[in-house]
């Protein structure tokens, strides 16, 4: 609509010289010609997970600025961090409780001034002070979405023994070669170690020779058994809908989306445990846009309307307590647990590894994948 209006006004000769120049500037035409002040302010740049670039999740920002921010989509936080460190000027990043410390330690995260966020006081108090939201005594992430990582499977395509007693071991079982999909993440090694009997509290901080042994035993098996290692959720959802794969490491959105299409799918509570994460928005100090725009974007994410969209659309929880008051009751019932504290008590909450451990996992996982043939 905007575009057509612009063209109409241009044809009618109703556009001012300034508006024309601004439009040209949007194409990069004027950067050398125009005087500095007439170039429009830098657009906000956000590093986001695939799917979270939908305006449903930051409508208030769009209403205020009349346009969406720029997005750069990442598959995992480590990709995003490497991109920022390589010089990508992003303003806002969407890390999770276990990964935000990486951004703080790398010196690219800025402390949040929570008084500038109008919805801050409606956030679950447990999340306001949770590890990851607060790091080194500073609030570095505004918690927004929370949910689970677990095993999603097709009950119609798996034997009843598995359906009754689901286990992560399916990802390391040669009998299921080519019929499952792990995520392209070092979690494949961590979960493997857990299948081998190691508790999560030890598995997430494997290092050195123990890490290499775990990667050789479990990582290699996961890579060989998986049909593919998924990096974006639509890829794994399509494969699961068609029956190409019967089990996958998944988030709540997979189950919500497939059920909506009538595909039978279960979100398991495997005997080794399922995981809880909570993610949020972190202000980066590498950005060029106005800081107020970044705060407005974060605040839009914290709004109850965004929470409603998140709960109804993806089956994720939201950090704003009011979101649960206005969201569709049936959608909330489908989610099961609506209190993040209760959720965290029942499942394994992801933990933050040290930088050395994370670097070790990155390298070992990269090598493991490369050696598949």
């Amino acid at each position, binding site marked *: 609509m905007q575009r057509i209006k612009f063209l109409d006004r241009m044809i009618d000769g109703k556009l001012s010289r300034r508006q024309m120049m601004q439009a040209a500037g949007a194409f990069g035409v004027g950067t050398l010609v125009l005087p500095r002040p007439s170039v429009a302010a830098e657009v906000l740049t956000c590093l986001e997970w695939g799917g979270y670039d939908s305006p449903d999740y930051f409508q208030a920002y769009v209403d205020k600025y009349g346009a969406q921010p720029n997005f750069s989509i990442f598959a*995992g936080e*480590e*990709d995003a*961090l*490497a*991109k920022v*460190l*390589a010089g990508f000027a992003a303003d806002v990043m969407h890390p999770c409780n276990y990964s935000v410390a990486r951004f703080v*330690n*790398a*010196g690219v995260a800025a402390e949040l001034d929570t008084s500038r966020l109008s919805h801050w006081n409606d956030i679950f108090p447990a999340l306001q002070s949770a590890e990851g939201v607060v790091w080194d005594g500073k609030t570095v992430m505004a918690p927004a979405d929370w949910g689970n990582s677990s095993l999603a499977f097709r009950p119609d395509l798996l034997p009843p023994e598995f359906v009754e007693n689901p286990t992560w071991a399916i990802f390391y079982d040669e009998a299921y070669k*080519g019929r499952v999909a792990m995520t392209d993440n070092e979690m494949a090694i961590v979960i493997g170690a857990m299948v081998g009997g190691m508790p999560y509290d030890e598995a997430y901080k494997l290092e050195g020779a123990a890490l290499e042994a775990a990667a050789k035993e479990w990582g290699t098996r996961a*890579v060989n058994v*998986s*049909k*593919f*290692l998924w990096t974006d959720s639509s890829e794994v959802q399509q*494969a699961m809908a*068609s029956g*190409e794969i019967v089990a996958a490491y998944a988030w709540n959105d997979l189950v919500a989306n497939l059920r909506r299409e009538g595909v039978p799918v279960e979100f398991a509570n495997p005997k080794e445990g399922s995981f809880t994460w909570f993610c949020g928005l972190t202000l980066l100090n590498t950005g060029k846009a106005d800081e107020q725009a970044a705060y407005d974007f974060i605040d839009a994410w914290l709004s109850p309307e965004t929470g409603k969209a998140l709960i109804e659309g993806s089956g994720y929880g939201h950090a704003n307590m009011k979101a649960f008051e206005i969201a569709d009751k049936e959608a909330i019932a489908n989610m099961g647990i609506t209190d993040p504290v209760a959720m965290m008590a029942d499942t394994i909450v992801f933990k933050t590894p040290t*930088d050395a451990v994370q*670097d070790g996992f*990155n*390298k070992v996982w*990269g*090598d493991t*994948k*490369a*050696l*598949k*043939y």
Partner: protein
Amino acid sequence: MIAMLALPIAALVVLSFWTQSGFELDRTPTLENYAQLVRLTDEPTVWFGIPFYFSYPVPAILMIKSVVMSLSATVAVIALAYPMAYFLAFRVHKHKALWIILITIPFWTSYLLRVFAWKIVLGFNGAINSGLKAIGIIDQPLEFLLYNPGAVVITLAHSWVAFAILPIYVSLEKIDRSLLEAASDLGDSKLKRFLRITLPLSAPGTVAAALLVFIPTVGDYVTPTLVGGPGGTMIGNLVQELFLKQNNAPLGAAVAITMMLIIAVIVAIFLWAIGYRRIRARRA
């Protein structure tokens, strides 16, 4: 030219002599990155039955794998392109320009889209599988089509074939037709005439086409990412991984430079082996 080519390569070379420590770049010049690529160990990593005595075997293994995959793609491209170019040069007499435009039509869409199209063709519910199912040859979709090195080679071959047709066509088109007539007059069979006249005289174009396909495909990154799965990984994916995931740009730069050198050596050996000098001398 300097700004576009020399500076980025110089930057890459400089970067490869630095090291990464945590989030910081250590700017002391060192050969450590290169040493890491060739350092030996007693415990071999066995890959395809071949023991690799490197302590960091991934780059060496992926380099060999990439060269093999890329060579297969190159052979497939030449095998596809040569008959097409031959047809174009000798059988088409009218509207040649139109034919050439038709051949370049696949290039009107983005490379990414062409690769993605192959993902749809080869996929689980893709064109091949649903076609075979519809005519009753198979009941279960074939699983081996996508996410393996074969899928990467097929996609590369298709994507690059038009690049090969044009140089081969030009060299075939330039062949003096009176030579062919003379060969026939002097009693050569059609096959002999092809082997003794057409093939040698079109060699420069064919060699150019082979190099044009081989060099860029060794380091290709997007094709293995989309259709290769973990089994189809190539050396370009390792460079990307080192730069953008393992946050070790200096090592990534060292791998990239080593890759360039190895490709240069392979190309030099190839040209020497087919006697490129002789071909050039004959042309002159």
